């Protein structure tokens, strides 16, 4: 398991390459997700997102969730990289990658990890645009998806 908070831009492809290098012969599936900061949102142009976190606690909570997801889906490995601080439009915010023997558990694990990150990971997000800053909180959809995963 890898859980990393990144105060500066990272390359999802480079991380994926490292992951693939380390994989074992019993690994048949690598599912992944990269979330990017979009240049527009429901409220207009977006220049950047600013992600606050709770140093120490945030890492610990993500590790706890990741350990739960690994066990639930019997993964070979799970990697989570998450930006903190200012993220410019177009940059990657998050990478989740799951390795497993077969495809179904890897898909389920990545989707579940993302659902947890949206509602249960200690981050607080502001969107910066021409009209100032706006807090982004989980949507009803986000909470509904989160509820689908037994804990």
């Amino acid at each position, binding site marked *: 398991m890898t859980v990393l908070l990144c105060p500066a831009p990272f390359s999802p492809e480079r991380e994926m390459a490292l992951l693939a290098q380390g994989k074992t012969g019993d690994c048949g599936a690598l599912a992944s997700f990269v*979330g990017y900061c979009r240049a527009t949102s429901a409220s207009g142009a977006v220049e950047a997102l600013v992600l*606050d976190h709770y140093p120490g606690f945030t890492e610990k909570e993500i590790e706890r969730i990741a350990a739960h997801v690994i066990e639930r889906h019997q993964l070979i490995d799970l990697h989570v990289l998450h930006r903190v601080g200012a993220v410019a439009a177009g940059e990657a915010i998050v990478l989740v990658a799951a390795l497993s023997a077969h495809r179904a558990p890897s898909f389920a694990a990545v989707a579940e990890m993302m659902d947890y990150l949206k509602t249960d990971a200690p*981050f*607080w*997000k502001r969107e910066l645009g021409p009209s100032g800053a706006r807090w982004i909180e*989980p949507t009803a959809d986000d909470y509904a998806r989160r509820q689908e995963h037994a804990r």
Partner: protein
Amino acid sequence: MTKILFFGRLRDAAGLAELSCCLPQSLRTVAEVRQWLGARDPNLGQALAAPGVRVAVDQTFCASEQACAAGAQEIAFMSPLSGG
């Protein structure tokens, strides 16, 4: 000395991200700490009582507002979390 932290919208409501204080010995639970903070700043008190606010004492989430806050080193009040 207890460190009190505010995250997300609560940071705006508190006008600060962090404060250090000596909590009165009489305060036993998280709910009592929240009321004490609200007595000093009613707007903040209202924000802390909003639905979705979570509290961690010494970096452990509290399951209820009746959780013990006495002797805490660090109490964090958090508006709804959202990563990803």
